[in-house]
């Protein structure tokens, strides 16, 4: 089982069309039928889909797919790409020019800091989501995982956030990197939590320990993106992933 993280840099002015096109092929019943085009080709529906509010290279549209295997993925997607439905939708919705300038396509997997003991039942999570990518010093990712599990994620939960998922970037640029998705009720709560984290003595203390033990911080930098979950892409708690559903 693996997760596919797909992040699209949209042509300026065409984010809304890209969002609508994804809904048409992945979610909505094809030509009034029950199944979507994704369903027809065996492509799972996104476990989360967003547009960006702030961060790098806006406007961005992104989603995550959960696959059983690479064989499944590399059978289903090429069949979809070469099928008549996608050709028709793509031609019609592009309307002469591409909707997407570039996209990133990473392989990600659950990080050890992802505590799913709370279960995956419940309502889809709306509000404002924050994607934090901790870029780590090579070989030091486990120190960052421990910090996230013991301090940062706990502090965010105290301040009103919900950890939706934590992933290692397995195949992607600028790794090691750990992606955390945090759900917030609103921007004000997210900002208050960020300011509170700045003042958290345990952060200072952990950084002091790192300097003593490692000579440096294992975190190189933190990339942050604020995301709005799309109506059709609100993730379930823990992205719907049961605690026991993942092999070590």
């Amino acid at each position: 089982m693996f997760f596919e993280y797909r992040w699209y840099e949209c042509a300026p002015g065409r984010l809304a069309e890209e969002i609508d096109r994804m809904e048409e092929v992945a979610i909505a019943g094809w030509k009034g039928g029950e199944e979507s085009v994704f369903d027809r080709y065996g492509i799972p529906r996104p476990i989360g889909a967003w547009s960006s509010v702030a961060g790098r290279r806006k406007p961005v549209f992104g989603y995550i797919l959960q696959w059983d295997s690479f064989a499944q993925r590399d059978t289903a997607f090429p069949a979809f790409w070469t099928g008549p439905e996608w050709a028709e939708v793509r031609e019609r919705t592009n309307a002469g020019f591409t909707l997407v300038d570039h996209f990133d396509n990473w392989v990600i997997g659950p990080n050890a800091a992802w505590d799913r003991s709370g279960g995956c039942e419940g309502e889809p999570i709306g509000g404002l989501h924050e994607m934090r990518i901790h870029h780590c010093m090579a070989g030091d990712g486990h120190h960052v995982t421990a910090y996230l599990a013991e301090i940062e994620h706990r502090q965010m939960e105290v301040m009103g956030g919900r950890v939706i998922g934590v992933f290692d970037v397995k195949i992607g640029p600028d790794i090691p990197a750990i992606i955390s998705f945090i759900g917030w009720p609103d921007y004000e709560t997210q900002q208050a939590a960020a300011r509170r984290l700045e003042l958290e003595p345990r952060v200072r203390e952990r950084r002091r320990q790192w300097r003593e033990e490692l000579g440096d911080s294992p975190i190189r930098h933190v990339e942050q993106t604020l995301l709005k979950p799309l109506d059709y892409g609100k993730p379930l708690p823990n992205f719907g992933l049961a605690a026991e559903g993942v092999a070590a």
Partner: protein
Amino acid sequence: MSGFDDYYELRIYRGTPGRMADLHHRFGFEARPLFDKHGATRPLGYWEGHAGPFAPAYVYLHRWDSLDQRFEAFGKFYADPDWNAQRIASNAGEHMIDRADIMFLRPSPAWDAHRPEGEPEPVGGLHELCFLPLNTQDAAEGQRVFGEIDLPFLASRGAEVLGVFQVWFGWTTPQLVYFLAWDSFDARDAAMSAYQRDPDIGHQRLHERQTYGGPLHFAGDTMLLEPAHYGTPVSGLAGPAVKTG
């Protein structure tokens, strides 16, 4: 009154987590007498950011009459043993700043029609710092369109234009850099949602693709910022930042 002859220096620091309060103290208070002593201008605004390409971020903006004056002032400042002693003492064994992005800017013609009238007043609320790379095929037209079509749309939905600049040195050119202020996150969110689905804006982008083979501006980074209580910018960035808290 500002004009094309002005130079602006945008300094974006990628702060070390946990050191934001120390950065505020350093640049908002402790180092100010040294900046003054060496002839540096008082910044037009100081900001803190927790929503952007990297976090946390500490940002401030200078205006300079001449870049030669700027290099003279900063040269003296950096060479001052008092600054070095202050820096080492306040770092307290850990750098406060991880990396810095520093760029020189000049006003864009797109700003002209959005300069405020009347006495400058402090501008609070949610501030937004955006980067907008321009299509090299016609960067002047890209600036005109942004000033005459995109900005009025956002302004009519609650954006206050603080400043619109073009990159002069230090970052990808041609590129616009602009600051907007909003009453709240929700006000901005509503405006951006409308912007993304507005048919007139869409027609303009289509016209650009038909004329130039691509849009006149490309995807860029966005940071949401909060002005510091000791360094809130005034409308139109018409003078040094003021104390509001």
